[in-house]
C-alpha cells in the first residue's frame, strides 16, 4: 500500500504577531520550526503501515523552504520520499486545494494527515482534501490496519464520550490520525544529516494547475485572549490557600 502523509511545519513559539496589509494571513517571527504534533503521529503510523504492507511512504507538506526541515525529519524516520508544495498559505481551504492538487499527481492508496495544526487550529485540511478528491474519510483515527477485504483498510476512530467506532474504508481513502499514547521518536542527528543530503521534489502552485481561490476569509486582527472569567486567585502560603480552598469546597457540598 502506497501511503502519502501530509505534514505541516509549525512554529515552536511565536513572537511579534501581526496582520499584514493584505489581511489574508498572520505574520510572525518564529524561533524554531517543528512538525505539527498530530502530523508526527500520522507520519509514524503511515511509515509503519507502508513498511508492513510492502509499499512506499511519501511525506508531503505545503510550505516555504523553511518547511523542508520537517520533510527531512520524515526521511530520517525512513520515509521513502518527500514532496513540497512551495506555497505559504493560511486559509485551510487553500492549503487543502494545493495539497489535493499535488496528491492527484501521485500514485497512492491512502492519504494520512493529522487532526489539527497547532498554529491555525482549524482541523479542516484533512477532510477537505478527502472531499476534494472524492474519497471516503475518517477523523480522529487511532488505529489503521489492512482490511480483511481486498483494497480496504480497517480503522478505529474516536467518537467522543468514551466511544470508538471500527470502520472499513474502501481504498483509496483519507484518514486523519489522532495523537497517541506512545510519544513519537525523535530523529537522531545521524539520520537528520543523512536525510539532509537527499533530494526533495517541490511543486509550485502554477505547476499544479490550482486555480487561485478568492480569499474567503479576511483576517481583521490578532490579539491576546481576553481574560474573561478569570478565576479568583487565592493568595498566601500553601496552608492558607488550602484552608480557603477547603472553605470554598465545603460551601457547595
Amino acid at each position, binding site marked *: 500500500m502506497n501511503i502519502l502523509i501530509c505534514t505541516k511545519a509549525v512554529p515552536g513559539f511565536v513572537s511579534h504577531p501581526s496582520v499584514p496589509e493584505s489581511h489574508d494571513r498572520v505574520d510572525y517571527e518564529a524561533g524554531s520550526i517543528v512538525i505539527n504534533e498530530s502530523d508526527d503521529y500520522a507520519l509514524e503510523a503511515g511509515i509503519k503501515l507502508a513498511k508492513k504492507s510492502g509499499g512506499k511512504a511519501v511525506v508531503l507538506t505545503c510550505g516555504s523552504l523553511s518547511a523542508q526541515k520537517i520533510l527531512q525529519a520524515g526521511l530520517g524516520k525512513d520515509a521513502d520520499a518527500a514532496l513540497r508544495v512551495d506555497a505559504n498559505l493560511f486559509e485551510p481551504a487553500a492549503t487543502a486545494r494545493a495539497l489535493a492538487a499535488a496528491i492527484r499527481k501521485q500514485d497512492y492508496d491512502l492519504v494520512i494527515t493529522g487532526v489539527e495544526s497547532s498554529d491555525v487550529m482549524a482541523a479542516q485540511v484533512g477532510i477537505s482534501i478527502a472531499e476534494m478528491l472524492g474519497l471516503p474519510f475518517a477523523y*480522529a483515527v487511532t488505529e489503521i490496519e489492512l482490511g480483511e477485504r481486498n483494497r480496504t483498510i480497517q480503522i478505529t476512530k474516536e467518537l467522543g464520550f468514551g*466511544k470508538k467506532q471500527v470502520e472499513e474504508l474502501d481504498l483509496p481513502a483519507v484518514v486523519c490520525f489522532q495523537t497517541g499514547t506512545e510519544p513519537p521518536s525523535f530523529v537522531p542527528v545521524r539520520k537528520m544529516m543523512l536525510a539532509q543530503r537527499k533530494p526533495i521534489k517541490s511543486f509550485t502552485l502554477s505547476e499544479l494547475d490550482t486555480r487561485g481561490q478568492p480569499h474567503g476569509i479576511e483576517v481583521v486582527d*490578532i490579539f491576546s*485572549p481576553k481574560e474573561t472569567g478569570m478565576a479568583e486567585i487565592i493568595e498566601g502560603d500553601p496552608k492558607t490557600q488550602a484552608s480557603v480552598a477547603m472553605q470554598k469546597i465545603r460551601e457547595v457540598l
Partner: protein
Amino acid sequence: MKGEILVIGEHRDGIVDNITWELISKGRFLADQWGTHLAVLAVGSELDQLVDSLASSGVDLVLPVQHTLLEKYHAELYTTAIAQVCEQLDPGLVLMGYTYLGMEVGPALAVRLGGTMVSNCSELEAEGDHLVAVRSVFGGTLQIKVRLKGEQPHLLSIVKGVLPRDNVEGRIAAVKRPAVDLDQSSLRSRILDMLTIDTGGIDITKAKILVSAGRGIGGPDKIPMLRELADALGGELACSRPVADMGWLPVAHQVGISASTVTPCVYIACGISGASQHVTAMRDSGRIIAINKDPNAPIFRVAHYGIIGDVLEVVPALIEEAKG
C-alpha cells in the same frame, strides 16, 4: 448575508446535547438581527422525542432527518444526508459544534456545498451583512478576528461551552421531515463495530467530587497523593488525556471530549493546563478549583478559584484540611 440559518443539532441517548442549545441561542440572535429564519436539524432513526424539545427551543423550523440507515453515526451517510438537506434548504449560514461531528462532517460539507468554513470559533457577531468570528491560534496563546467573505453557505463550528444557553421562549417551530436519498450499495465505508472504553466499573460521571491529575503533577508517583485527597473528600480521581495516554491512570478516569464529560459539584484540577479538549468536558462543574504553577495557564480562565502554586505543596495542605 442571505438565506436561512441552519443549526446542525447533536444528540445522544435520546437527549439533545448542550452544544445544540448554545448554537440555537446564537442562531436566534443572528436570525433576528438579519430578519431571517432559524432551522435546526437532527440526524438519526428515532427522533420524535427530540423533535418536541427542539420545537420549543426558539427555532422556526425543525428538520428531523430520519432514516433507518442513520441509526448509528456514519460519517459518509451523515455527510450525504446533511448535504441533501442543505441543498433543499439552501441556508446562508450553517452553525455546528467544534465537536467530533463538526470536525469530521463539517469540512466535507463545506467542500460539497461549495461554501466557506471557519472552525474553532469562540465568538461570533454580525457586523452589518457580514459575519465576524473570533477563533484561537498558536496553541490558544493568541486569538484572531476574521470576517467571512467567501462563497455561501458560510459554515462555522463553535467551541462547545463558550456561547451562552439563553432560553428563548414563546415560539413553537414547524416540523418538516426532509426526504433523503441514501443508497447503501454505493457506500465506500462500513461500520464494523462500536467500542466503549472499558471503565472497569469506575464511573467518574457519577462522582460529586473529582480530584483531577494533569501532566503538571510531575509523575505517576504523585497519583497516590491525589488519591489520598480524593478519599479524604469522599470523591474520585480523574485526569487529563496526557495522563491517561502515559498510563499514570486508566483511561476510565479521563476527562475530555474523547472520553468522559463530567459535571461534579467540585472539580479540583491539579497541574492541568486547560487545553480546550479537556476544559469543554468539565466546564459545567459546580465549582472548579485549579492548582497550577503557571499563572498564564488557560485553566485559570475557566476555574472559579485559582491557586498559583506547586501541586506538591498545596495538595498535602488540602489533605490536612480535608481530614482535620
